[in-house]
């Protein structure tokens, strides 16, 4: 049952993703990609548990490395996307 339930989530999230992203205009495709980098850093959530639990030294090392890499994506991704989006301006009506 557990597997079926997970696959249901996969199905719904995939369709939702396609519907959402289709509406992003071409002019924002680069911020979309850097923003995707940021949210793909969600791996951090899994890495936190691996880094902080007591399942042995190897798990801690691998988990900590994963935390570091995912943090780069989360912090760097959101900041650079924000920096880029601040540049997009409409024409001033003179």
């Amino acid at each position, binding site marked *: 049952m*557990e*597997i079926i339930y997970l696959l249901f989530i*996969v199905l719904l999230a*995939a369709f939702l*993703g*396609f519907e*959402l*992203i289709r509406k992003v*205009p*071409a*002019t*924002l*495709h*680069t*911020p*979309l*990609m*850097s*923003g*995707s*980098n940021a*949210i*793909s*850093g*969600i*791996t*951090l*959530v*899994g*890495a*936190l*548990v691996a*880094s*902080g*639990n*007591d*399942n*042995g030294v190897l798990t801690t090392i*691998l*988990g*900590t490395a*994963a*935390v*570091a*890499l995912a*943090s*780069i*994506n*989360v*912090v*760097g991704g959101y900041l*650079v996307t*924000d*920096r*880029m989006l601040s*540049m*997009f*301006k*409409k*024409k001033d009506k003179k």
Partner: protein
Amino acid sequence: MNDIATIINLAYVVAAALFILGLKLLSHPDSAKRGNFVSAVGMLIAVVVTLLDQQIISYQWILLGFVIGGAFGAWKAKTVEMTAMPEMVSLFNGFGGAASLLLGWATLAGMNSVVVQTTGAFTFITLFFTVLVGGVTFSGSVVAWGKLSGKLSSKAVIFTGLRELSILHIIAMLVVGYLFTTQPQNTVWLYCIIALALSFGLWATISIGGADMPVVIALLNSYSGIAATAAGLATGNTILIVTGLLVGASGLILTNIMCKAMNRSLANVLLSGFAKPIEAGEKIEGEIKVLSAQDAFYVLEAAQSVLVIPGYGMAVAQAQHAVREMQSLLEDNGCTVDYAIHAVAGRMPGHMNVLLAEADVPYDQLYEMDDVNPRMENYDVAIVIGANDVVNPAAKEMKGSPIYGMPVIEAYRAKTVFVLKRSANAGFAGVDNPLFFKDNTRMVLGDAKETINNIVREFGDD
């Protein structure tokens, strides 16, 4: 489920809602910045609440990893040049893939023999995919990053046996995948998967040329999300599944847009390294007419409407600020200035838009190919800056051309065309461009930034 687990999962639902809302707000430039913030709040909630997890007994390693990663990410985000965005996104794709690979490995390393016995095959199959996709994403992205930043040659590396090598990789993956899921306690199979994944990502990307990079980056972006989803399935973490799929879908849609813009299938882009180069078909006849920057200025001074068509060359020459300056002068002179941006101009989706936004060009002056082509005849001057294949009429006129059928910006239909280019050589696709030989085309040779600065200076002297 105990109380804390319930709280964590409820918070994940909120975080997922914020990610979705954030992406929804990204559908318009006015609300996009807010969308990014909403999404970041979602991430903060997900991370903070995860720290409550009772499996976590110590925080010093987490803190260490976060400080190192966060500092590096923040530094990169603050200092990166807008022209270097494709490299940065590529590198971040790679980090995402590597994080998933390590998470998959850590999950497996954390299982003792009793746990391995009682865990179902589904977990090991998804762990296999996590490590495999994560590894391919990592090595592929590193190669793409090397090519984009000029550390590796941007040419496609092709050698005989490349196809056989790839087929061998895929067969080996299937075999090792089977062995791993049936004997997960034997770590040799895990190391085999990692080695195969890294090697496959390397060969698959190194055989793709610089001009096809927009497709590769978009695809690797998608893979980094899929790797996160697989990790979520392996660890039963729903927020990883949902969020990874949002990223996966985003990358796939962009990949599809890029492929359509080049009139090629994804398979064709990925396997082009395996195909024989097409023999040159018809010879282009005619004469190239060169114009000085000063004469270009006289034409522009008299123009009522100008269309600027930028390409990767504008990024290389860092000419976007000079272009913006020229735009202001033209507008003060009573001329309207529009920009036409081809979907595959530059080295990643939307690359040109970001560069022009950086130079303060309003986004409502940027048009897509389909918006400008119908009214191309109305433009007095079309200025092509460092673009080549995306304005190549061979795509329409020459059946033998490798880019025949690709939708292009039909600059040649404007009254006059200026092509700003270093030399009259073929573009990245290595295809001759008949546009250079048209009667209404004038080549302004030299560095694009210098040329435009010269034109701007002429305006000042006037």
